[in-house]
């Protein structure tokens, strides 16, 4: 072959055959990936459409009214929103200190082997179905609360409205406690990741200045992992807000607002679980669907914040590592 002259060919991009196996495979798998978007969109759409009779009739009053009366077809969501937020708040009040404390132990003190084993066990706890938490709560936590803990709280703080009224065993506090147990696997496992992503140099710098182990952890490591830990808290919160079965079994099913933590109440998820199949009228079921929409919006908001925070810390940790 003779040496050809150096011909400048026109610049070209890479070309492929019109329909290749790869294009087919791409189109085929895209169909299924797109299904995820279609289904999610359909879900939001159905919630929106299904709740429109209630939205039209009650408008914004739906969120502020505390009247829930299927007989007169009057529906207000406030007792459920209150119950949902209160039980989730109580849950976090218990699970955040416990969970973050445990996460500190697992990331800073325990040997890697012990840490991994304990984390594995905690994550197993996250796999326990919620109906089983409810089952155990009904037969162990509820009597325990009714017969011992709630009377003790009344004796100690009965003068404050928070702990007044009779002890039922079921109610906001009991639901909050069971939710706490259900959320701390998330808080522990995500916080531990965030703490372990803190560069070793940060700890060593503090220790080299004469800080105690606790001081270095509390003043340096925790602030560094702050966003990730907050993310874990929001993740736990999202789970607590949407949690249905365990709460339904111990909340007491009372659609009213009570100041006392010992009183029975209701949550959004619980009222849907209990009343959806019985909702006879169009307005009744529409109101329940609107509750579903409210719950959806609430958890999406919290989940979004959680994801953002976790992403931000992971980035920060890896950038400085």
């Amino acid at each position, binding site marked *: *072959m*003779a*040496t*050809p002259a*150096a*011909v*400048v*060919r026109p*610049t*070209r*991009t*890479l*070309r*492929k*055959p019109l329909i290749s196996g790869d294009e087919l495979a791409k189109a085929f798998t895209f169909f299924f990936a797109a299904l995820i978007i279609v289904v999610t969109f359909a879900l939001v759409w159905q919630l929106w459409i299904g709740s429109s009779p209630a939205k039209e009739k009650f408008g914004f009053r739906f969120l502020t009214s505390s009247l829930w009366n299927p007989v007169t077809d009057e529906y207000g969501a406030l007792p459920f929103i209150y119950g949902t937020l209160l039980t989730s708040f109580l849950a976090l009040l218990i699970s955040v200190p416990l969970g973050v404390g445990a996460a500190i132990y697992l990331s800073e003190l325990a040997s890697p082997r012990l840490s991994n084993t304990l984390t594995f066990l905690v994550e197993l706890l996250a796999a326990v179905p919620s109906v089983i938490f409810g089952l155990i709560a009904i037969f162990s936590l509820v009597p325990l609360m009714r017969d011992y803990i709630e009377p003790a709280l009344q004796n100690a703080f009965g003068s404050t409205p928070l702990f007044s009224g009779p002890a039922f065993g079921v109610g906001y506090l009991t639901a909050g406690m069971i939710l706490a147990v259900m959320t701390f696997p998330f808080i522990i496992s995500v916080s531990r990741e965030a703490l372990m992503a803190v560069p070793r140099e940060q700890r060593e710098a503090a220790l080299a200045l004469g800080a105690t182990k606790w001081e270095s952890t509390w003043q340096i490591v925790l602030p560094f992992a702050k966003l990730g830990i907050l993310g874990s808290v929001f993740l736990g919160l999202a789970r607590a807000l949407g949690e249905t079965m365990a709460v339904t079994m111990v909340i007491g099913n009372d659609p009213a607002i009570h100041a006392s933590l010992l009183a029975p109440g209701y949550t959004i998820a619980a009222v849907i679980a209990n009343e959806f199949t019985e909702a006879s009228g169009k307005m009744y079921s529409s109101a329940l669907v609107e509750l579903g929409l409210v719950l959806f919006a609430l958890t999406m908001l919290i989940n979004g914040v959680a994801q953002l925070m976790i992403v931000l810390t992971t980035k920060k940790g890896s950038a400085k590592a």
Partner: protein
Amino acid sequence: MSTSPYMLPEKARHQDAPSHGLSINDMFPTAIPHSAGATTAVLQPLTAKMKTEHVNFYYGKFQALHDISLEFASNKVTALIGPSGCGKSTFLRTLNRINETLRDTRLEGSITLDGENILDKDVTEIRRRIGMVFQRPNPFPKSIYDNIIYGPKINGMLKGKNAAEIVEKSLRRAALWDEAKDKLHESAYALSGGQQQRLCIARALAVDPEMLLLDEPCSALDPIATAKIEDLLVGLKSQCTIVIVTHNMQQAARVADTTGFFLLGRLIEHAKTDIIFKNPSKKETEDYITGRFG
């Protein structure tokens, strides 16, 4: 300099076109007769198995290769050397179009195999004809046997052929048969690193490639395993055209017939290996060879 027997005619030195390699017929002015049984005394010119012309390559906005024109002589070993990040691996990976599987990349210019532009051909056929061996051994998580037979199977080369024969032949060509024949059906990961790399060579040879591209094939291997692979390459060149990227200049000197020197995405010089190492025509090449940088 002008006393060197390998010294090239002045016109071939491409002083005015710095990024272009020499034509291989300039490098081998007394080429061996092409046909084996040739009775004629006519010296046939050496054929270029592959030619690249004015190749530019971009990762996103970053231009990694600048106007590379190079010829690879049939049945020769061509080494590409240069400091890390000089584009030699990128260039090698354009030759079988494996780079286009990376996102956001762009190629300009032409690359021909036997005179046909590989950019116009079916990419899988091109890759079958041009084998590749990677920096780290990358056997599939399958048995040794299944690793070898993978290429022939997907390329429909098993019809009317004995699969076991293909496996044995490929392993023999890669000098791995004696070590592997008793554990053909064990996982490829049971082999040592050097054996895994020879398995990858055998896997590439199983589809009868016309060219073999090797991307720093010995960088993860010990000296003994490296020596085995170098011997292997010299033996293989009668059957295919070999291009090897290496950061090890001694390796280039030992195995390559011609050597191209890359720097900052440009081809500085391409000439017979002993010229590159004894008497390079470019200052940059000389600096690199004598260790003045890198």
